[in-house]
């Protein structure tokens, strides 16, 4: 079986375009994006009245958090570990890992983000339907971690997408990840649907 050994595919046009997108994104993401929710302070939240509708909706939303596929690196395998039998996040209704961002609610950023990857992550975030949440998993997700000083690494996902919960670790143990998810549950529980317009 003879295979054509010439490289006919090399699409330099596309490469150049993608390089431009990366450079543009890099130029505009100098600062960390603040929390999208304008997060309620602990003491404030106790005074906010949530309607019954809010309560029911928030219950539904946190009980059916479908994560999107976004597993660039090491942390992915701790994510798979909580999907696997021993920690089993399906107990919280999360095993429906959607590969299509349209149908997902939660982005768990399991791994180092590089500038080459950043436009894709941003795009996936943009494609997700509201309401949506992001968990920055691991040291790389929070701050770039071990690779913070590198020329190609984004120092934290919050340069690209707004992050709701930060989970430290390299990688975080599955229990810590589950705890982070439950922290997100608490955050969702305090949210009012009035805020969604923003």
């Amino acid at each position, binding site marked *: 079986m003879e295979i054509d050994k010439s490289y006919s595919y*090399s699409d330099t046009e596309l490469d150049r375009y993608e390089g431009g997108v990366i450079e543009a994104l890099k130029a505009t993401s100098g600062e960390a994006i603040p929390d999208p929710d304008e997060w309620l302070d602990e003491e404030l939240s106790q005074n906010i009245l949530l309607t019954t509708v809010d309560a029911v909706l928030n219950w539904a939303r946190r009980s059916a958090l479908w994560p999107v596929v976004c597993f660039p690196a090491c942390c992915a395998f701790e994510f798979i570990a909580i999907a*696997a039998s021993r920690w089993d996040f399906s107990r919280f209704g999360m095993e429906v890992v959607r590969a299509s961002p349209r149908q997902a609610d939660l982005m768990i950023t399991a791994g180092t983000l590089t500038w080459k990857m950043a436009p894709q992550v941003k795009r996936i975030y943009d494609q997700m339907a509201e309401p949506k949440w992001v968990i920055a998993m691991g040291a790389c997700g929070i701050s770039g971690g*071990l690779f913070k000083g590198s020329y*190609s690494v984004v120092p934290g996902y919050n340069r690209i997408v707004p992050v709701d919960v930060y989970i430290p670790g390299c990688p975080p143990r599955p229990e810590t990840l589950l705890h982070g998810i439950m922290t997100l549950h608490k955050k969702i529980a305090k949210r009012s649907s009035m805020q969604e317009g923003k």
Partner: protein
Amino acid sequence: MTLKTEHFVLNLGPLHPSTHGVFRLRATLDGEVIVDIEPVIGYLHRGIEKLAEGCTYKQNIPFTDRLDYLASMSNNLPYVMAVEKLAEINVPERAEYLRVIMVELQRIVSHIIAVGTFVQDLGAFGTPLLYMFREREKILDLFEMVCGQRLTYNYMRFGGVSHDIPDEFLPALAKFVDRMPGFIDEYDQLLAENEILLARTKGVGILPKDLAINISASGPVLRASGVKWDIRKADPYSVYDRFEFDIPTGSISDAYDRYRVRIEEMRQCVRILRQAMEQLPKGKVLTEVPLKLRPPAGEVYAHIEAPKGELGFYLVSDNSDKPYRFHVRAPSLINLTALRQMLIGWKLADAIIVFGSIDICLGEVDR
């Protein structure tokens, strides 16, 4: 009459469920048949080689953990071997045995993930992967006993390993070694004769022997192509010359052969583990070296048979406490070279499983 068809370009990845990380295939399709394919990598390029030039030798061990994050122990080993060669550090015998035990356990973990995700890509809804993860968790427990971490172990040191094993380790390992063959039989029962798996993988993604060698493939990919080349036998390092084990090879060089080779290697790992446990000597596990090691100027290349293939570290020292050049010969990257040759003419669905059968780890491909 010939049907006139139009090619179109399909972009798989970089965040695609079956790309094992951030890998992208620009595929030109004719219907569902792949006409041309261009792997695009670099989405996880963290610049480890550059960062390592700015860190001391010891500080670089955590970086090696994160190369092939599915086999961190196997990545620690060639790096410390290279530095030991460079600085002429002796390793106590017990430490050598502990290294072999850890690396072989790690090989089982890596192959478990390779086979599990490979079958997952075939479309089995998680079950084989989750059964295999059950055993993986047991090995991770063993690793955690030894060094306190589940994934990034940072266990090997120049001149040995960081800690001796705790008392509860050997009984737990013995228990695991006793049970593991039974688990491998379970995988076989679930997968080995499954008609759909056979239909999907037999004869798919053939990598002929000559091409495999020419393309510098290594590890199970090379062996599945019928080349009996295993660095543990060909260039024995550590104490591998004291163990008896076989090198499984394939005959048809297809995806199924690669799957079989991995399953068989897991059995061989168990064999090596048994012997290593029997022979494990007593004594110290670490030769003391200063924190900021300053090896004499020179260069060194040390390689081992990592689960994914020949993993080598090429170090250049200028007699300072930081490496002048730190290069990783990453098996995943080089095995990936074969992908294009193996894919053209196959269906889109085959692209996924052939890719899965190579078993790459993007952390190592991109570095």
